[in-house]
């Protein structure tokens, strides 16, 4: 399947990996400006050296419990394919661990249950040493329909004032 280098990070006790080619950079936590009328997992936007990029709280996106930021909390800036365009966005994770080489032989299909995470984001389970890393399908973290739904759908149903 998708052998290669993965950047691994932690959400709570679980290890996740994201294809290194998707990662632009890792930055410490920045002051986030909340975006109105967006789902809770959209933390807001940050100023990345003059560019305004959205950041997602991956815990909330994966349906895990919210947790206050610590000094290990990081933003991984990723470039995702959405339709024909590339989107730069940040994902907030508890802490970044290491870069892992995963061979195809070490990858198993995702379990159909038992993960803390909606399995549709998981490409496979990488077993390296005694570690199990859930390999994310980065492009599916925020899919196109979802992108388009932000804002428009919410505002339609939210009671508009006045």
């Amino acid at each position: 399947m998708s052998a290669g280098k993965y950047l691994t990070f932690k959400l709570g006790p679980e290890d996740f990996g994201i294809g290194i080619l998707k990662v632009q950079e890792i930055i410490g936590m920045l002051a986030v400006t909340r975006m109105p009328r967006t789902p809770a997992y959209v933390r807001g936007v940050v100023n990345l050296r003059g560019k305004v990029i959205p950041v997602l709280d991956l815990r909330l996106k994966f349906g895990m419990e919210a947790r206050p930021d610590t000094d290990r909390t990081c933003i991984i800036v990723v470039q995702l394919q959405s339709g024909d365009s590339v989107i730069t966005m940040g994902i907030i994770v508890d802490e970044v661990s290491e870069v892992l080489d995963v061979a195809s032989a070490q990858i198993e299909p995702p379990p159909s249950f038992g993960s803390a995470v909606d399995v549709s984001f998981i490409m496979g389970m990488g077993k390296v040493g005694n570690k199990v890393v859930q390999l994310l399908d980065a492009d599916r973290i925020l899919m196109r329909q979802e992108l388009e739904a932000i804002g428009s759908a919410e505002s339609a149903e939210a009671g508009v004032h006045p």
Partner: protein
Amino acid sequence: MSQTGSLEAVASDQASFLLPADADTGILADFIAEANEHLEASDLHLLTLETDAGNRDLLDAVFRAFHSIKGVAGFLGLDGIKVLSHEAENMLDKIRNGEIPLQGPVMDCVFDSVTFLKGAIADLRKGVNDEDDARSREASSALRTRIRALLSGQEPAKTGAGEGEPLASASAPATGPAPAAVRLGDILVAAGDLAPESLAEALKEQADPAPRKLGDVLVETGRADAKQVAQALRVQKGAAAPGIAAVKETVKVDAERLDRLLDTIGELVIAESMIQGSPELKGRVSPKLVQQMGQLDKITRELQEMGTSLRMVPVRPTFQKMARLVRDLSKNSGKAVNFLTVGEETELDKTVVEKIGDPLVHMIRNSLDHGIESDPQDRIRSGKPATATVKLSAFQKGGNVCIEISDDGKGLNRDAILSKARERGLIKEDANPTDKEVWGYIFEAGFSTAKQVTELSGRGVGMDVVKRNIEILRGRIDIHSVPGQGTTFSIWLPLTLAIIDGMVVRISDERYVFPTLSIVRIVSYLEKDRLTVKGKGEMLSVQGELVPFFPLKDYFQPDGGRSAQAARLIVIAESEGRRAAFPVDELLGQQQIVIKKLETAFQNIPGLSGGAILSDGCVGLILDMDGLMKLGF
């Protein structure tokens, strides 16, 4: 001219427009680019020559354009283009030698040659097929027949002068200034070099005994010195040939690199203001550092201004294209039109200038097709000159640039638009909207795609597209129309797409930016002014006027934020003629806001138009007034 004979022998209809198989593609690409530049320039030189037939420099420039196209086309084996350029060059040479006058059918023929070559070169760019070749050969043959007829039988060209040619200035002597040009005497008087009385005397002396040049008279009689006259002559020449005077040296730069430079400057500005505002520096700064920081600040601002100006280009090329368009439309429709342009040096962001072309073409076409009366008698009956005037002007006002297209035609037909609007169910039968609202209907999609019967129908064709294009540029269109006197379309555009003047406010925990242009006034909030009006929701009474009350906090952050602290200020903002009162907690100040686009996902959020990096490096959200107003009502 020695090779004329042999070339003309080749100049048969055999000359092909197909690209020879062995043509060098590198040279070809250069040729296409250069030929296009030559032809564009020729177009505008010819337009100037039409009113200033004696301008030798411009005529030479047109001649050289054809000459160099001929040369390179010959080298590349593009026989078709070579043959036609050659014949056109012959004709221009005769014009230069004064053998035939550049007016009437001769002028048309030169224009047509330019157009034909443009077409042939456009074909080269996309690849010529046999069909193009056949079409070009036919057109080329017809054009060359016309040129030969003009060259041999010179009579029709000469008698054509002075009649039925509103654009040609037949009366101007070949060496004298065109009627529109400023007179030498006037320039000297305006410069204070010459007293009006002296001028009158000199003019008398000039005519008597033998006509002499005014400048010579002035110098000889000691009324003005030679230097002053020379300066005035230079001014006069500049006024008479604007196309030539404005040429400056330029460097072509890759647009992407330019954008990257501007982005970097933007980041520098932000970084600089973060340092200036950093709390660590406050209070423990030596005078020397203050001075150095001031210097840094000044340089950064200058860089920013320069950076912004790099993207600014004059609207002149776009206006020149319109001049050509009007000329062609006027010929085709037989309507005599005097086309004026004002403020061609006005500068706009490059992107805006590029995108404004199509809407302008559309609107000018509309003005000529439907605004101007087809029968000159109708015009004379309404007390207007038989020749119609279409004016295209540009000027800057505040942070905006206005481009106006005005005609002195019959004006918009209110009744016709109204009945159409009723027919389409846009308004109720008994409604009596204002003129402004009525004119607005011509921007409705497909408003006039129905039977095109009246002048009204044409006015609306594609006007919805025009409006949308202008709105994408964050601009708006105003219409002013008086029946029988004409219509003016005013397009208001921001100077640049990247920067607005903004008022930064705090609402609860977040900071938002109101575009300063939208703010009507800011008042303090008094609880007693807040009323609930049946069927309209909450309103605020502001100096006797009831304005809808719009708490952004409830809309943007219904669930969170700081505990509701009573807002102390109210920003009254206006957009598209609608007002609303927005309670805010604090005004943080006014500043130039660099608009940062939000990610696709967030562009759908109604009420927000972008993000802005504030002085502390955090992101503030720019409010989209149009969007908010539409939400509220």
